[in-house]
């Protein structure tokens, strides 16, 4: 919560034209984005964009959101958490697009992050996942660091006071120790949770999956999302999406390529938007993917997209 206040203050400061140190930084980096003057009114609650390559989509979306330096301050320890759950190459859309992950890592470092760590508690054997998803290579090239998450010793007990079912969870140490993290799932259907998006992506920061599956999965996902350190950005990779046989997928027939991307600070809103986008390919309601509604009850965000300032862009 502190970070939110901090960001809000920084934004307000900028609007008022206060020349503080943080404000200076903000202005300085904003100069590279032509035609936009940063300020509360210009920053949408969500950016939905489609019709481009992963890097283009990301570059435009983050520009609309005010640039990475709005979210990552110099010296911060950053975690980027993609979905790397399966030992599948990028065209199967089982994992987050490696190009997108690489671009985000690079951008965080450019914004002054002291380190960028990337991990996922994978379902398939971790080495295959890290390698064949292409994410390990992309992260290394971007200057980030892949960290292990395949053993319990990397996870530490953490209280989730707001939670209803999962009151404590073992959460990955990199996430516990970071200053800011960015949540980057890929858009897929899911046999259990129905949809796997930003909140479902939390299962990769938690050690005990089976507990979640056996104690009301939907509630546990919403509970996990109550972890006090919220992602500074939620970016849903919709470049390739999996519409059936998810989350692992079986063949390329499971994949559609709408070339979309959704970005927001509101995790419930971005999951809602992605679900409604998915609904165009295959029937899906928020009642099915009920963890989104449960998260709204936890006051983690809103499902009422009409009330939000959403910037829709077609490239």
């Amino acid at each position, binding site marked *: 919560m502190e970070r939110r206040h901090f960001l809000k203050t920084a934004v307000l400061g900028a609007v008022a034209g206060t020349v503080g140190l943080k404000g200076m930084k903000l202005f300085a980096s904003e100069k590279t984005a032509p035609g936009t003057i940063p300020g509360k009114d210009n920053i949408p609650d969500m950016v*939905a964009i*489609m019709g481009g390559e992963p890097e283009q989509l990301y570059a435009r979306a983050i520009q609309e959101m005010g640039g990475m330096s709005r979210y990552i301050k110099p010296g911060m320890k950053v975690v980027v958490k993609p979905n790397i759950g399966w*030992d599948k190459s990028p065209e199967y859309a089982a994992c987050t697009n490696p190009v997108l992950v690489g671009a985000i890592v690079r951008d965080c470092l450019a914004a002054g992050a002291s380190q960028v760590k990337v991990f996922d508690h994978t*379902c*398939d*054997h971790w*080495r*295959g996942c890290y390698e*064949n998803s292409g994410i390990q290579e992309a992260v290394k090239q971007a200057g980030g660091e892949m960290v292990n998450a395949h*053993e*319990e*010793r990397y996870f530490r007990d953490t209280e989730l006071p707001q939670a209803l079912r999962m009151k404590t969870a073992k959460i990955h140490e990199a996430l516990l120790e970071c200053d800011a993290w960015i949540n980057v799932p890929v858009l897929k259907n*899911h*046999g*259990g*949770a*129905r949809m796997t998006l930003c909140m479902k992506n939390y299962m990769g920061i938690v050690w005990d*999956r*089976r*507990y979640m*599956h*056996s*104690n*009301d*999965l*939907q*509630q546990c996902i919403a509970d996990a999302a109550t972890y006090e350190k919220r992602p500074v950005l939620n970016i849903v990779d919709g470049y390739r999406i999996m*519409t*059936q*046989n998810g*989350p*692992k997928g*079986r*063949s*390329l*027939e*499971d994949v*559609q390529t*709408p070339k*979309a991307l959704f970005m927001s600070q509101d995790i419930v809103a971005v999951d*809602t*938007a992605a679900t*409604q*986008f*998915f*609904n*165009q*390919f295959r029937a899906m309601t928020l*009642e*099915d993917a009920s963890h989104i509604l449960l998260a709204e009850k936890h006051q983690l965000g809103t499902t009422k*997209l009409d009330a939000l300032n*959403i910037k*829709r862009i077609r490239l």
Partner: protein
Amino acid sequence: MQLYGFLRWARRIIALAVFTGLAYFFIAFSAKATALWSALLGLQIVPGILGIATGGLVTVIIVFLLTLLFGRVYCSLLCPLGIYQDIVYRIGLFLRNKKKRRTRYTKPHNTLRYSILIFVVICVAFSFVVPLVWLDPYGLFGKMATNIGRPLAYIVSGSKYDAWNLAAFLISAVILVALTVTAFFKGRLYCNTICPVGTLLGLISRYSMFRVKIDPGSCTHCQLCSMNCKAFCIDAGTPVIDNSRCVVCLNCVSKCAKGSIRYRFAWTPKKKLPSVPEKKQQSAGTNRRAFLLAAMGTGAGAILLNRFTEKKIINIPKAMPPGAGTLERLKDTCIACHACIAACPAHIIKPAMGAFGWQGFLLPSVSYDNGFCGFDCQKCQEVCPSGALQLMPLEEKKRVKMGVVKLMLENCIVEKYGTDCGACDEHCPVKAVRMTPREGSDKLFPKTTPALCIGCGGCEFICPARPKAIVVIPLSEQRRADAPVIDATINIEVDGFGF
């Protein structure tokens, strides 16, 4: 003399490279170097013989030819267990008081070694491979490296080792201690007494093209060569070398001050050494008796054993790694070198205890307690040197049915508590289990299609229910799973965002 120095150094370097290479792969397997590993394993003779129909023939020809030309260089250069004993013996020499060294010639234990060889040959001829599980030097090396070295390496690195097996560790430890002690004091005693490979190659190396020989004319019987022989095969008094036990280390050659002991071309039709035939006849007599006894005894034994255990085991409590085919085939070709256990990234292959009967003790078995078989992984097949786990195209491996799914819906989370789960569906690579809607419920329930199941164990591993709601029933005869029904390609074009 310089030439011998060079040859000895070449031997040491090659042997060390082979040994450290193999030890590294077994103990700290790196998934990337499978090709190099399988190349090193491909030179092992016993897996070559057992897999003679599946690519082992080349290995057998190479090793036999090498032996026929140069003597038992295989034992010195390529056998990891032999190299290990050399290292131990060397350390022993270094530690021991040099003044106490004396003649180290011993008589060959012919009855024992030929009996063992014949016993093993007859057993293998009757498809009874168990003796090799306990005697093959490469297999013993693999067992020790995998069950002792690997857990230790994991402890050092601080990771958890899921394929840990106490029984296999203890057995390997006993063998390791026994071998280390005999090697320390008696050099290559194991190789020349127990090892069926050593005995077999010894039969050829007696007549190899190049042999270490003593020139009786210039020999002063100073015993220097004998004192430096790790095979204890030089009788410097006579003087004569037992070439069936000589592993061509060439240590004696470089020690001889007179230059009367040489490694040289030996197929010259020259006069034979006078003392040799006498001795030969004597030992041949014992050999023949031993041969007949052993042949009859073990032949009958092996046949009886096969009779008694012929009943086909249909239900096995543990699955076999992919490519094993049938349990019979696995037992016929596997010497439990545990390369597959070391190679499996998921650590699901473990030494079998009672799962495959007493004949299958220590053979590789699959358990899904802490992992499942990777759909795109066939490391075990890639490294298996005997073809017991038959290497096949990856697309074929993806259809190998190690077991078949069994769903016990009454244990299922969705059925019991009415909450979403779907962990099994999530992990199934072929959609042999799928979350399916049911009338009157907004939940999805697992539904299985056993014909598609390959028995990878993903569902069993991840199922959060206790007791498990979904398990894999292992098959003693691996089959081919039905090809997954691929849905038709539909490209959906979307114009808007939908919100």
